[in-house]
């Protein structure tokens, strides 16, 4: 446990120090890189609640990532054009309001998807979550009001009270703040009564039922919470790029989130952070050399799955322990 904590602290310090240092040296590009890491990590922390703690291999979390993105984009565009949405509700450029809307929207969508998908398990659950995400993907493509296939651009990043979000370091600070909050939440969840029931559902669902807890209820709650966290990351991702497109809803996006978690360490607190760091750095380093950088990602993933099941964190800190 101590080694894992040390690893987490070192990684946190590096993730803060590196962009600040390069920014001072006049290389703001690395700040964008760190922001990407933070946002993907946040999305994966969300997925890690369902996948890592609950063993729910959702291959459809892009639906929530994309929905969060579209919430940010649609609200921003309406606010920018000063035209109300349906029922006269105005748009907004306030990030906290956008996040709240993203959380509620994703929770509702996840409740519906989860209530249906969680009646299945194993490979069927993977396929049915994928199917729902694909529905969302094609819906976004074929809905012309918000850009359809071309996506939706907004010109200025949304606002946060008291912070100039246009400064890259300030926006990075917001992303780190939310990532930090999500990690605290994950940690509390993991050791709570709910987390205990959720992890028992992964290990042995008959046992959970035989102590008097219905696995379905626990999993559904976890799926909803997980989706809400991923949705907030989607809203931030839209703000990073000032652009939302159906690609945020694609199955490749769902796969990417799963890959991040496997790279970093399934069910580990910092698994998504380590995974996102490795992923984005590889994309940057290898992407400069070859367009086929994902070939090398594939090799690394193969290595992790065959020789280091615990991911990067497993290599540094060994197997997890339960109290």
């Amino acid at each position, binding site marked *: 446990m101590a080694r894992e904590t040390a690893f987490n602290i070192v990684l946190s310090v590096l993730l803060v120090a590196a962009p600040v240092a390069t920014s001072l040296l006049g290389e703001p590009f690395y700040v964008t890189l760190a922001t990407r890491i933070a946002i993907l990590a946040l999305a994966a922390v969300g997925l890690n609640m369902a996948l890592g703690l609950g063993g729910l291999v959702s291959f459809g979390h892009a639906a929530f990532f994309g929905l969060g993105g579209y919430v940010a984009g649609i609200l921003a565009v309406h606010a920018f054009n000063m035209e109300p949405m349906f029922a006269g509700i105005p748009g907004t450029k306030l990030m906290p309001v956008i996040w709240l809307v993203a959380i509620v929207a994703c929770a509702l969508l996840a409740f519906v998807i989860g209530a249906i998908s969680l009646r299945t398990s194993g490979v069927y659950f993977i396929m049915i979550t994928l199917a729902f995400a694909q529905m969302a993907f094609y819906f976004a493509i074929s809905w012309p009001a918000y850009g359809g296939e071309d996506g939706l651009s907004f010109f200025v990043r949304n606002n946060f009270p008291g912070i100039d979000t246009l400064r890259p370091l300030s926006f990075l600070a917001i992303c780190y703040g939310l990532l930090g909050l999500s990690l605290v939440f994950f940690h*509390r*969840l993991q*050791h*709570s*009564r*709910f*987390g*205990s*029931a959720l*992890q*028992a559902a992964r*290990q*042995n669902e*008959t*046992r*959970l*039922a*035989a*102590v*008097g*807890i*219905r696995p379905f209820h*626990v999993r559904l*709650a976890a799926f909803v919470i997980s989706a809400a966290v991923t949705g907030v990351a989607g809203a931030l991702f839209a703000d990073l790029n000032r652009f939302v497109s159906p690609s945020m809803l694609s199955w490749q996006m769902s796969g990417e989130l799963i890959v991040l978690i496997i790279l970093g360490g399934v069910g580990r607190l910092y698994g998504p952070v380590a995974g996102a760091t490795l992923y984005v750095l590889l994309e940057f380093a290898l992407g400069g050399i070859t367009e086929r950088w994902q070939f090398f990602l594939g090799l690394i993933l193969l290595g992790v799955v065959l020789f280091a099941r615990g991911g990067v964190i497993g290599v540094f800190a060994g197997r997890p322990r*339960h*109290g």
Partner: protein
Amino acid sequence: MAEPILQLVGLSKSFGALKATDDVSLDLRPGEVHALIGPNGAGKSTLIHQIAGTLKPDTGTLRFDGRDIAGLHMAERVRLGLARTFQVSSVALEFSALRNVMLALQARQGSSFRFFKDIRSDRTLTEPAMAVLARVRLAERAAVPAAELSHGERRLLEIAIALATGPKAFLLDEPMAGMGPEGSKALTSFLAGLRDEAPILLVEHDMEAVFALADRVSVLVYGRIIATGTVNEIRRDPEVRRAYLGDGA
């Protein structure tokens, strides 16, 4: 006579042409150990599954503690007080023994949707869980992951978990399975004291344990109950001897 806590009337379950449970009526009264015996394939497991809630009977009624439980999920039956153990130990293997018992306690307290408080320092869970582990003499092994417990220890952990759910009746599916003579003897004497806490419906192959523990015995053959009675009545019953114990018994 005291009102039975668990009552099965005319329970039937077929798989295609096979009648796995054929018009079974059976009850469990306060303070007793009621053993269910029968040769392999007699339908004991199918019957247990229907009582516990993993299988739905085709016809018949199933009453527990004064209410019809046939439509309830297994988890709801457990919350009403119907605790069960499994023929093959079924615990959360990554969790310590203590945490397995704590899981049952939180279910009993009806509080699994708490998201923040750390259970490792929650004395409303840890203290009663240690007390239950001490009862089955597993207290020193509390911190050991269930996966690293011996077979016998896991059997005891199953019983500890069942105890922690706060049962009004126990459904014990071959608790002696694979225990060895020493372990069986110890468990038999432990179960003997348990009947005052809650009556036990005991499925068991170990005849020594059955004859030592049971107040009543029901014999299941081809899905039917062919006899119910005290240990002595069952020993003398010619039909039972023919069907099950073998003529030489």
